[in-house]
């Protein structure tokens, strides 16, 4: 053994083993958390949700198909609307006026404050009979306001509104950071070439931010799929279970002690979720390679 000559100037053996030892010790807490509270639940969930009867029950439930439709509407409208507004607002917050700076600090409050009180504030404000919105509509315009939370489409619309209200500052901030990373001379060069405002947006801003924007849309899609609060605390899935999305439907089954159906409701979304996650993993972990 001692005849083997190491080509590289190695550190003393004691130090290597010291580092290897502490490396193993320090990574263990995270691996334990991950094994006990991520791997085990996921495996347990797949096992619990693997009986064909659960899927039969799920597909026979008339709520299921309206829930799928709601979920798709919720995702398409909420995510795209939110990201488009965030993209526009990120340009607004680029202005250097003092009042814009102050407004950006205030704007963050929707993100900073916990969501429960503000969702409940929306809920009471939009209450068709006793809420402030319909009271003022009647007082000012003598108009009977619609049942914001008691009709399916208004209810879903209100949930989308609340969802956007809560998460808009976060995405605006991310896109603002993306805009600030674009070198100023690109805009100057575009101006010298006589580009219009639209052209400089199209060829400078958008072409620099497209990757970030797509990443944000995909990430937001996955997270919005897991948004339970906006629907549950606003409409509770009602009226007559017509505004459920997959997140609230799954929890509803769970509360009814139908764990297998709850998991089936989550697992049916996987064909849509897994490709996005796979794509995102490539994007996000690719970032580590870059520098």
């Amino acid at each position, binding site marked *: 053994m001692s005849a083997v000559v190491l080509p590289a100037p190695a550190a003393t053996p004691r130090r290597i083993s010291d580092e290897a030892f502490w490396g193993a010790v320090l*990574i263990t807490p995270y691996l334990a958390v991950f094994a*006990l*509270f991520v791997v085990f639940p996921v495996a347990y969930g797949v096992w619990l949700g693997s009986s064909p009867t659960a899927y039969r029950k799920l597909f026979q439930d008339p709520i299921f198909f309206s829930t799928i439709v709601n979920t798709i509407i919720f995702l398409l409208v909420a995510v795209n609307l939110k990201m488009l507004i965030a993209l526009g607002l990120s340009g607004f917050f680029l202005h250097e006026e003092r009042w814009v700076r102050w407004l950006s600090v205030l704007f963050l409050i929707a993100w*900073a404050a916990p969501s429960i009180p503000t969702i409940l504030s929306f809920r009471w404000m939009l209450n068709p009979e006793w809420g402030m919105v319909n009271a003022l509509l009647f007082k000012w315009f003598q108009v009977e306001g619609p049942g914001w939370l008691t009709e399916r489409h208004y209810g879903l619309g209100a949930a989308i509104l609340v969802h956007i209200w809560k998460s808009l500052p*976060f995405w605006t901030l991310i896109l603002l950071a993306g805009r600030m990373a674009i070198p100023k001379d690109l805009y100057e060069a575009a101006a010298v070439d006589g580009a219009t405002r639209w052209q400089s947006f199209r060829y400078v801003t958008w072409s620099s931010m497209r990757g970030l924007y797509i990443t944000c849309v995909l990430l937001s899609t996955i997270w919005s799929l897991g948004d339970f609060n906006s629907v549950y605390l606003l409409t509770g899935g009602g009226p007559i279970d017509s505004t459920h999305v997959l997140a609230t439907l799954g929890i509803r089954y769970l509360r009814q002690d139908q764990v297998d159906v709850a998991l089936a409701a989550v697992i049916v979304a996987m064909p849509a979720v897994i490709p996005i996650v796979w794509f995102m993993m490539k994007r996000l*972990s690719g970032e580590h390679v870059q520098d």
Partner: protein
Amino acid sequence: MTLRKLPLYATGLAVFLWTVIPIYHLFVIALSPAQEAVASGLVPKHPTLQNFGLVLGAQHNLVQYFWYQLATSAFVAVMVSAITLAVGACANYAITRIRIRGGRAITNIALLTYLIPAAFLAIPMYKTMGYYRLVDNPWSLIFAMVALASPYAIWVMNQAARKIPRELDESAKIDGATTLQIFWHVYLPLMAPTLVAIGTYALLLAWNEYLYAFLMLATEARLTLSVALGNFLVFDDAPWALLMATGIIYALPPTAVYYAFRRYMVSGLTAGAVKS
């Protein structure tokens, strides 16, 4: 000149109203006497602090455990923050400084957790906590939130740790420092700004969490405040003025913490995102 700025002012006004209206409404109702919280106007006619008095004095059935619930929320938030920091910093040090084998793979699987929709994972997590006999115990919520917060912690820390020159570790090693001494005296102080950001992030995540707490906690005196707020809705004629006052008291500490550490939060948050 002014006319050209009109769209800017209009956008500013829209952003202001959009942000402020739900919060303003929260205060109007909280400051109204119970009977005036219904079909309220734009300003409370007889503003009063009696709702806040009821909450702080725990003088209503729905807020009788207010202080217990506040304590549970605080305990859970502080524990999640501390454990996430400890677990995250240890893992990050092992991955980026000691460069253990498989460090990249661990980062990637951690990232995978971050990409599971929260409400989806909640279902098997609840059953798992039942299996571990932790249901209705604040530790079930603490462990679940640590599991959700630590992947983001590791990811952000990985970005930050790369900016610390490895020469510092090397020279400390030459001076005879042990691995643990480098961790404690070199790595942790240099990572302090990121640790503040992550600690705040985990604290707020846990304090604000509703769904996991709603599933895992049951005894009324041991709920977190967020769940207690949701439980107001169980009653057909929820006392909305009281609910809004409780909501404001619940929202104040995390909002204050967020604004106090805003600079750290914003730089930590956007550090990873911008580059893709």
